[in-house]
């Protein structure tokens, strides 16, 4: 571990918003805005190194100590339960984890419910709490077509505006949990780089209030 603070940012639009929060918090890195394919950017003066990673991998980088802190969606934290500190709700990338079904679907509690999802653990925990017997069908994308093609009865997925659901003739039936981006920290980094992490935490808390 170097003394530089290593920050894993999620690639994409959310990552850009998150970076501007870090910039406002006093940890700028102008080279990150250059239009190129580089993935690692550092500003030794500010003592910070940023890297872009796939959003679902941010928590792994932080848990394993390759990154000291990072920004991950609550969906990823609930699904993979990485051993990290969840320091702050950044209130960015707000959406919800929901159960959706075709408009004409009628749930029969006497039958095992077939649930297609990318988030098997979240779906299992939700239905276990309801005492409902389900059959999980794990998919990696295009979850919305599963009920249309008869692969599943319902889906559990992230809903932002609901447009994709509507266009595929699906309705939200239940909201499982609200989702947003969270600032996370590696356990050991929190001890050994405490001053920098606390500074970022305080600045970002003030910015997101």
């Amino acid at each position, binding site marked *: *571990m170097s003394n530089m603070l290593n920050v894993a940012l999620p690639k994409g639009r959310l990552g850009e918003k998150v970076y501007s929060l870090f910039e406002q918090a006093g940890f700028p890195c102008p080279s990150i805005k250059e239009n190129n394919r580089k993935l690692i950017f550092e500003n030794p003066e500010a003592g910070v190194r940023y890297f872009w990673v796939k959003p679902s991998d941010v928590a792994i980088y932080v*848990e*394993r*100590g390759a990154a000291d802190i990072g920004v991950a969606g609550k969906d990823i934290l609930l699904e993979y339960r990485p*051993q*990290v*500190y*969840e*320091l*702050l*709700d950044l209130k960015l990338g707000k959406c919800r984890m929901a159960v959706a079904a075709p408009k004409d679907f009628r749930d029969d509690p006497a039958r095992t419910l077939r649930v297609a999802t990318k988030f098997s653990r979240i779906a299992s925990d939700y239905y276990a709490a309801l005492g409902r017997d389900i059959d999980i069908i794990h998919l990696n994308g295009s979850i919305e077509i599963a009920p249309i093609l008869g692969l599943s009865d319902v889906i559990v997925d992230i809903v932002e505006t609901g447009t994709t659901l509507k266009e595929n003739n699906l309705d939200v039936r239940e909201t499982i949990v609200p989702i947003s981006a969270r600032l996370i*920290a*590696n*356990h*050991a*980094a*929190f*001890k*050994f780089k*405490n001053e920098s992490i*606390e500074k970022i935490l305080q600045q970002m808390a003030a910015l997101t209030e």
Partner: protein
Amino acid sequence: MTERILAAVRELYGRYGYLPYKMSKFEEYDLYVRNKDFLISDSVITFTDTNGKLMALKPDVTLSIIKNSREQAGCVQKVYYSENVYRVSNAAHCFKEILQAGLECMGDIDDYHLYEVLRLAAESLRAIAPDCVLDISHLGITEALLNNLPAENREAARVCIGEKNAHELRRLCEGCSPAVTEALCGLISTYGTPAQVLPRLKALLADVMDTAPIAQLERVLAPFAGSDLCDVLRIDCSVVGDSRYYNGLVFKGFVKGLPDSVLSGGQYDKLMQRVGRSSGAVGFAVYLDELERLEQTAHGYDVDTLLLYEAGCDLVGLQQAVATLAKEGSVSAQQQIPDKLTYRQLVHYKNGEVTPCV
């Protein structure tokens, strides 16, 4: 490196009167079924012994030591161990053989024993790496505050405390008095040395709970004042343990260069009660398997010196050259450079002389 640390901690524990404890690799599965939640991972490798008994490859050491402990009023039994345990690794999601060293202090334990075990935990971390931190908490504080929450929210709140997740914790505190909510959220945001944190904790908690646990923390940590180990100690109330087994002090140790804790321990009087003992206990384990990652960062090569010699050279002179180089670091004597062997310096032995290769 692991062997060096193991030797150092064994010698340390022995100096404080802890006796070595050796045990079998196997234990009856029944012991773990009754205390499954105490285990770090609830998956256990089992097999049926020749007599039909269901046995387990030991996933934990503490339960076996308690089972074989003896109680004597007013006394404590002090033992240390270094054993392999078999459990699912959090990171790899598969069974791993994990080398673990640690100690247990069982019996009529008092504040001195709590101090002694904390001291040995801090010294164990120092033996691993000079840059280390021992995070200490007291379950008496967190549990007293959690008792103000509705019963159905307490487990989720415990998870939030462990994650330093004040935003979710605040939501779970809905319905509690503002003072309790602020105390709980303040508790997990408070981190630092005992001198920085204990006065803040006292002020934060004075109106919402009995401050006896803070007073105990102060008593137990007082002997560290002025010692070099004081720099290692931090108060971190996000260190939590299962309240069905642990009570009082709980702690975790970290060393710079490793992403997660390498030491974990606490006072487990409640576990003792669950297995029919009337006395208390405190102990900790050091996870030695992770330390090889420190070794990787320490060396960028396989050997310090690769010494090349020619067939038929003077054997006595060669032996002396190797012995001299070995005093300064590792040395590998070879006739040719082996594929993939990395070294810091390359030297030749020729005509009774060692010369650097250019």
